């Protein structure tokens, strides 16, 4: 039942990838901004959590009460001060600026925290597990990650489709010019979207830090995982993104079972295979 255990691990890991991806997907959907710095922002929040946990000696999950609002405020400010100035008909300027931000963040984190591997210590949560039938064990942490991912995506979905704010976000995404004529302040709304994105990013960052070692250089790889999850799922559909994350996670854990060195490679191969067979992803948004 080794295989079943690996499958389960992969599915649960998919939750983390969906968390990586949800904020990226939201920003692309609302303002057609491909945020290259997304992965580094995940790392930034992991380091912010590291600082908070060591300053106040609290559990990393508790640090979220501080990290989430901090990152949300940073997101709003970043959007208003930097990204909003680059948005227009051309998608290249925001792309370049976010690339610049990515480089800046990596180097700033390297300067402050050095290249050493870090870890957010979550105590017994790291080892707790549930014994399932057939001798499969399920770690509490991966399970929690998955549940949180489902909650975050469900929450985001509710926000987008059941609230006035969500309606406004979708209208800006559809037609930014006419949205203004509805009385919407696009600049503010973009700020709110980035705040939400970075709030999700901080949850992702904290789980990333609890699950494995991290250092300032691993952001871009997380960005790739997020991209892959989004594209497999079909651009624009959040539940699809979760499915995409799960497919990627399963591919990676199965790959790792064949040979630990194949983990990342297997994920990319499955991604490429799906891209070849079904380039629109599994749940493309129909317009």
């Amino acid at each position, binding site marked *: 039942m080794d295989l079943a255990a690996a499958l389960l691990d992969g599915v649960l890991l998919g939750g983390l990838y969906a968390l990586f991806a949800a904020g990226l997907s939201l920003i692309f959907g609302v303002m057609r901004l491909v945020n290259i710095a997304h992965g580094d922002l995940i790392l930034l929040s992991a380091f912010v959590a590291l600082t908070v946990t060591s300053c106040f000696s609290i559990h990393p999950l508790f640090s979220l009460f501080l990290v989430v609002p901090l990152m949300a405020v940073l997101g709003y400010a970043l959007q208003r001060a930097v990204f909003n100035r680059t948005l227009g008909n051309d998608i290249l300027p925001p792309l370049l600026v976010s690339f610049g931000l990515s480089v800046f963040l990596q180097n700033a984190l390297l300067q402050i925290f050095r290249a050493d591997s870090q870890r957010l210590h979550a105590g017994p949560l790291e080892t707790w597990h549930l014994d399932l039938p057939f001798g499969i064990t399920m770690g509490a942490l991966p399970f929690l990650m998955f549940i949180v991912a489902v909650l975050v995506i469900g929450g985001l979905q509710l926000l987008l489709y059941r609230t006035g704010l969500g309606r406004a976000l979708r209208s800006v995404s559809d037609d930014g010019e006419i*949205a203004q*004529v509805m*009385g919407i302040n696009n600049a503010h709304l973009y700020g709110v979207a980035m705040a939400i994105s970075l709030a999700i990013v901080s949850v992702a960052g904290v789980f990333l830090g609890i699950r494995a070692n991290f250092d300032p250089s691993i952001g871009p790889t997380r960005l790739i995982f997020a991209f892959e999850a989004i594209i497999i799922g079909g651009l624009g559909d959040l539940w699809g993104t979760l499915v995409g994350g799960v497919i990627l996670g399963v591919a990676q854990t199965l790959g790792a079972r064949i040979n630990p060195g194949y983990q990342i490679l297997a994920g990319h191969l499955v991604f490429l295979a799906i891209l070849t067979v079904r380039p629109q992803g599994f749940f493309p948004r129909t317009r």
Partner: protein
Amino acid sequence: MPFKLLETRGLAAFYGDFQALFGVDFQIEPGETIAVIGSNGAGKSTFLKSLVGLVRTKAETVSFDGQAIWGKPAYRIIAQGISLVPEGRRLFPSLTVEENLSIGAYSRRKGPWNLDALYTVFPVLKEKRKLPGTALSGGQQQMAALGRALMANPKLLLCDEISLGLAPIVIREIYEQLEKITSNETTVILVEQDVKQAMAVADRVYCFREGRVVLEGRPSDLGREQITKAYFGV
């Protein structure tokens, strides 16, 4: 001098380096319906977009309801009580009909219009409220676009070619509704290529050509020849 709800003096508008409007002087009194006519590319849509802050402009004055609105961002102008029914309707494709209408009320201005009031005037929109805006026929989409603009409870309603691409019978229906709707306090600027239609509903007419106002007056005072000349510039 009667109170002017909206007044522009020396209004110029630009798309990048291209100047689309030149020194437009325009006035409208509360309760008036004004038709803006002119051939394709004359600057009619640009004029409406200038009023709500969607294009870059220069002007001596643009005032609305006693306040200067020149240079203000669109969302502030909308909140002061101007609504636009844009050319080509431009419903939000990923929103349902009802969501399209509701988003019109984003600025939360008080007034007679809400979903119930709209559904009374346009029952077909209530029937189709759960559908995406794009599932409506052209005429129904135009009703929805008009309804969306009314949801903001505007003092001044700007309509850009609401008859474009619609069957004559549908046009008549929409204009009938519009007349009922605006019989209360709403002031209207109608951009219309159909000169006959415009003359029939307007208190005054402005004719644009190549970004300038070339004729202005009451339909009853304007001769057919005069209008043709202004319209085509021959």
